[in-house]
């Protein structure tokens, strides 16, 4: 897939020549993101370590299938590569889904909305003292929640939304920005992320177990352990090292996220201690929790899949010049274009 970095063009083309080609909205997206396949796939511009993640997984599995499977199929069962293959497919699918799905980015407010909100903030402040910082308080489940005003996106952030400085976007139900998958983890791709780390834990444990079994079996069939390792030195050592370190970190991460899922928390909230008993002063300070582990898990992982709010593949209205401020949508909606944009399908 070809990579086109986002660069809004400000100058209009020469009058008299052919009109500028119609552009899709992703081409003028204000956040720090990269788009592929004409807007179907989205990635953070800081995709950092994603290639390394892919290489690690593919190399380890490749070594496993090449060196360990033939031996184990002969001595144990043919299901070893089958299980390995299924796990590998699951891990790759989850990883790609996590990386290339819109995490729940909130599009920035249009100029009219921003002006309207500014007006409301100004009229509520008094002239005798400095206006308070831009926060709004809401009551959710008898709990006071402060909504902050985002200066970049020019809107009050919904609850559980946070602004990612790396991607320069507000993301709904923001969990964290994961450099390993090269994207933020938020409302729309959390379930993919969770599947990824859980299946990766299974995969690494499985490979680790198989390699240990391989070495044990070899040393049992007459060869010593040292000889067995010497037979296929690179692959065994590499697999063992990678799997050993991965297991500790990935299993730990899976356990942590299982706890988060069960209590309907995000990493962001947990780190900040937003709902910890010390600050809230009661047992369950989290107003979003359903107070039942099963319901929390089901709501987070099996809840309805919300749509992408940034209409990446919609067409930009040709009459409107691209404004200097960070706005995304057309000023006046036209029904024909709106229907077109929705019919084109907004699959993430």
């Amino acid at each position, binding site marked *: 897939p070809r990579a086109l970095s986002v660069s809004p063009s400000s100058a209009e083309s020469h009058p008299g020549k052919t009109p500028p080609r119609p552009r899709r909205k992703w081409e003028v997206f204000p956040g720090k993101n990269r788009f592929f396949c004409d807007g179907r796939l989205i990635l953070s511009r800081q995709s950092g370590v994603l290639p390394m993640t892919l290489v690690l997984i593919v190399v380890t599995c490749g070594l496993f299938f090449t060196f360990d499977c033939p031996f184990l199929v002969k001595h144990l069962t043919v299901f070893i590569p089958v299980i390995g293959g299924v796990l590998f*497919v699951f891990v790759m699918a989850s990883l790609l889904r996590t990386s290339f799905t819109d995490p729940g980015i909130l599009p920035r407010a249009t100029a009219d909305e921003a002006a*309207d909100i500014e007006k409301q903030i100004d009229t509520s402040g008094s002239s005798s003292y400095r206006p308070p910082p831009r926060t709004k308080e*809401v009551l959710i489940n008898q709990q006071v929640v402060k909504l902050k005003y985002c200066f970049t996106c020019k809107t009050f952030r*919904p609850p559980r939304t946070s602004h990612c400085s790396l991607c320069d976007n507000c993301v*709904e139900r923001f969990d964290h920005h994961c450099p390993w998958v090269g994207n933020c983890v938020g409302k729309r791709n959390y379930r993919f992320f969770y599947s990824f780390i859980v299946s990766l834990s299974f995969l690494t444990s499985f490979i680790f177990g198989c390699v240990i079994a391989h070495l044990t079996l070899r040393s049992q069939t007459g060869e010593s352990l040292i000889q067995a390792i010497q037979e296929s030195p690179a692959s065994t050592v590499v697999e063992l090292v990678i799997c050993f370190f991965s297991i500790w970190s990935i299993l730990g991460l899976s356990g942590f996220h299982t706890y988060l899922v069960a209590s309907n928390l995000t990493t962001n909230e947990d780190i900040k201690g937003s709902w910890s008993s010390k600050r809230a002063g009661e047992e369950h300070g989290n107003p979003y929790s359903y107070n039942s582990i099963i319901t929390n898990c089901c709501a987070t992982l099996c*809840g309805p*899949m919300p749509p992408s709010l940034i209409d990446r593949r919609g067409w930009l209205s040709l009459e409107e010049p691209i404004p200097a401020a960070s706005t995304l949508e057309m*000023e*006046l909606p036209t029904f024909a274009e709106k229907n077109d944009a929705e019919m084109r399908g*907004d699959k993430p």
Partner: protein
Amino acid sequence: VWFQFHNLQDLRHSASLVTKVFIQRDYSEGTVCRFLTKFPSELDNRIERSLFEETVKTLNSYYIEAEKIGGQSYLEGCLACATAYIAFLCMETRYEQVLKKISGYIQEQNEKVYAPRGLLLTDPIERGMRVLEISVFEDQGSVSSSPSSSMSLAGGSA
């Protein structure tokens, strides 16, 4: 229907925009999508309070239906998980189906209720579900509609 559609076209192309009213989100029930039913003062002499509240309440009920956690959403979730989430690429989720219903409802409301009164609803999905935007156009019947803010954008430019 053709006559009403023609009326809507008039709004878009020839009427001049007076102001835009933004109905904000109501977060009292959590992160579920809901809009405040408080009647904005700018619409005081443009539309009946009951009609406006009816629209917002119906929209809210649609969103509750879309985000309902129940049998169908579990089925969707488990099926998708079992197919390594490839199923999501092929099928239309329940949320998307409800969103289509919502845009149909908004179109119908615009044609029947809002356009004849010189107002236009914008589907919240086009504003990132942040606001329900109501464009207020010049009221051809009365002399002036006393806008609170003076934003005059000609609707039919270029």
